[in-house]
């Protein structure tokens, strides 16, 4: 598989979204913002990813598969930027476009695992599942999720805490609820109860959503 340029990936992405989410099988050159005879288009055609006529372009079966991967990477990148790196606004899309390009296969699955195999991107669009997502259900691989997602008896290590005020962060920290702390979930109702060392702490959903944990197996 040849490596694609950023612009080509963007074309594939746009075609995939049109086809799979807007039910439009083809897209005009005008909408894509490219010339009929441009380098990008001819290269994609040569790779057998698209077919074209005088006005529009559409995906081949191979192209559809490839497009799905690009979309997956883009949306994972968005998710990573919003959930973990805490980027907001217009920057999300622009940075995601650049970032997706660097997420190679393998790394992409690791990011997906880190994020807990999310189903949707921050805009609410579906993230096409990768091979890692199906694997996870069986293996219960380690990944980073908010503490509120953990089930009774699950163990993990706090990775980071985000989304609460500095003052609250400081009080949590002074109680020993800090990155690196090993936790075990003891109750999830009526609020969250977990142990660190030989101590127990109760927190509500807001806090449990803010504390991100890498799940560990026994």
């Amino acid at each position, binding site marked *: 598989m040849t490596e694609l340029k950023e612009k080509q990936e963007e074309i594939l992405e746009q075609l995939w979204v049109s086809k799979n989410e807007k039910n439009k099988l083809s897209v005009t050159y005008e909408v894509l913002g490219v010339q009929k005879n441009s380098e990008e288009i001819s290269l994609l055609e040569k790779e057998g990813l698209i077919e074209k006529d005088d006005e529009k372009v559409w995906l081949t079966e191979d192209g559809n598969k490839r497009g799905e991967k690009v979309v997956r990477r883009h949306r994972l990148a968005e998710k990573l930027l919003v959930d973990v790196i805490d980027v907001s606004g217009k920057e999300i899309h622009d940075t995601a476009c650049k970032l997706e390009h660097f997420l190679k296969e393998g790394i992409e699955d690791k990011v997906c695992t880190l994020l807990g195999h999310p189903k949707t991107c921050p805009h609410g669009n579906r993230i096409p599942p990768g091979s890692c997502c199906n694997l996870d259900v069986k293996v219960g691989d380690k990944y980073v999720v908010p503490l509120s997602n953990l089930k009774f008896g699950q163990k993990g290590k706090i990775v980071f805490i985000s989304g*609460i005020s*500095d*003052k*609250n*962060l*400081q*009080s*949590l*920290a*002074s*109680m*020993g*609820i*800090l*990155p*690196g*702390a090993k936790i075990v979930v003891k*109750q999830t*109702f*009526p*609020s969250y*109860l977990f142990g*660190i*060392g*030989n*101590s*127990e*702490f*109760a*927190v*509500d959903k*807001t*806090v449990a959503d803010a504390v991100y944990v890498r799940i560990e197996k026994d």
Partner: protein
Amino acid sequence: MKNKIKVLLVGNPNVGKSALFNALTGKYVTVSNYPGTTVEYTEGEISYKDYTIKIIDTPGMYSMLPISEEEKVARDLIIKGNPDWIVNVVDAKNLDRMLPLTFQLIDTGIPVILVLNMMDEAKRMGIEIDSVKLSELLGIPVIKAVSIKKEGIKEILNLLISDRGLYRQKSINFDNEIESEIQRLSDIINNNDFKISKRLISIMLLQKDVEFLTLFESEGKNDIINFSDISRRKLEEIFRVSLDYIFALKRQLIAEEITRKVLKKVSIGEESRFINFISGITIHKVWGYPILFFVLYFGLYKFVGEFGAGILVDFIETNIFEENLLPKLIVLIEKTIKNEYLKELLIRDYGIITLGIKYAIAIILPIVTTFFLFFSILEDSGYLPRLAFLLDRIFKKIGLTGKAVIPLVLGFGCDTMATMVTRTLNTKKERIIATILLSLAVPCSAQLGVMLAVLSNNSVLLSIWIFVLIIIFFIVGYFSKFYIKGEKTIFFVEIPPIRIPKLSNIIVKTYTRLVWYFKEVMPLFIYASIFIWIGRITGVFDLFLTIIAFPLQYIGLPYESAKIFLFGFFRRDYGAAGLYDLHKQGVFNNNQLLILSVMLTLFLPCIAQFIMTIKERGLKMGLYIVSFVIVFSVLVGYLLHLIINVILGITL
């Protein structure tokens, strides 16, 4: 002349500080409230060899940067109390979580002794700690202790009278960038009013500690403030997160590193099975709730209500006051005092002795004593945080968090005290909601006791009364959540294991609270008698009664009930006690009794609570709350009248 040594016991909550305090001091103890707070701390003095050692048990704290009121008090005692030693008490089982505070205490520059407490529990769990190595790593003496068995006490006392210069305390090192800023800040803090190190002051300035910032500002040392601002910004640019976080993280890392070096898990032991079982089941998602119900039922209803307000009140009121004390006093006063007005002031229907003192001692004292006993047991057993955990979800619906259980449950003892304790809640919004609910729908123990005594032989009335109050509690709370603006609040709390409370601790706590209560209450009871006396002589009393009785007739209440409301203005329990008296005389039918009980429970808080509400919430908010409460209680009374008497037309 004996040499005096001043010692502070400092540590996280629930590490057995009080037990160590008791073991060190025996029973010569004074409990005081820290000035301007509800926070209690205990003080004791002992003679040991040639020394007088004064020991102060500080409230639990997690870090030197205070968040709660308790932590503020503890820190004040450290930085302003000028102690010779800090005895840092830690739970040996949780060494890694406790050491970060130890590092901060070491940074104060005050000599620190580390006491590894609860070594017996640690041993049972198979934990062994190399205290010699730990002492080397920290540069401070380390002692193993089991406070409740008085193990390790002699060693601590001997250390306290030893030479403090023998140890070289080791500060932990932060990253170089931070250390150099700390150094530069320390250099410009020239005169040091505190006995704590410049290093710690610098660290706290970097963490934007309000108290030190305002202090330097008031001294006009803007250079220090500006310098710390620049340093902080510089460091935050480097680390990209709040400095608090960086400090906490580093301390935790080093704590874990040290713990790894000194702690060995030799076998897999377990804490006592029974305690484990109780600890677990009291917060269980299903069983926690019936247990909660039983605790409140037996604690509040059976113990405070039936035993305190029933049996004890009966005994003191009838056997002691009415049959013995009062007749003798009355005869004595009749003989010695001739002036009829004075007699009226002392021994007639509303007299200081016959009404004020009788109410305070015969009716109120037994009830609040039993309540405070119950509350101290809840506190010392570790049940309160569990209650908070179980109720957090429900309390969120009324704009509060689980933390509000402490003032709200305390309100069942004394609403005035509870209003003061609302300070411990996190946000202004929570404090306002809790104050409203305390003013309106939480009857204090005296009131509760009297209401239970009045209503308990009619279970229908009692059930309706409870039902109406619960409904009102949640409806008012629910609407407050939407109409009172404020930030969203979060809930987190440490859940200690269940412990069996120590009787001596319970007694000391109950006693302190009773003293506070009576200082607050007794004068008011006497003033009330005096006011009523003046009112009666001048005719103002009757005028007020007529004014109050006017709206009451529309609610189907007899003229006499006006008295209760007038009394109730002095103290809620005073009014309730008036209800109790009139009820015994058979003035009311059941419909009236129910409406009155509900209205009186909802009605204006007593003067003391009113003053406290204004003190805590400000004049404007205080007046809002009180006006709301008055209007609301009359409306509810009228509504009940409509439903029971007019629409349903039933006799209960």
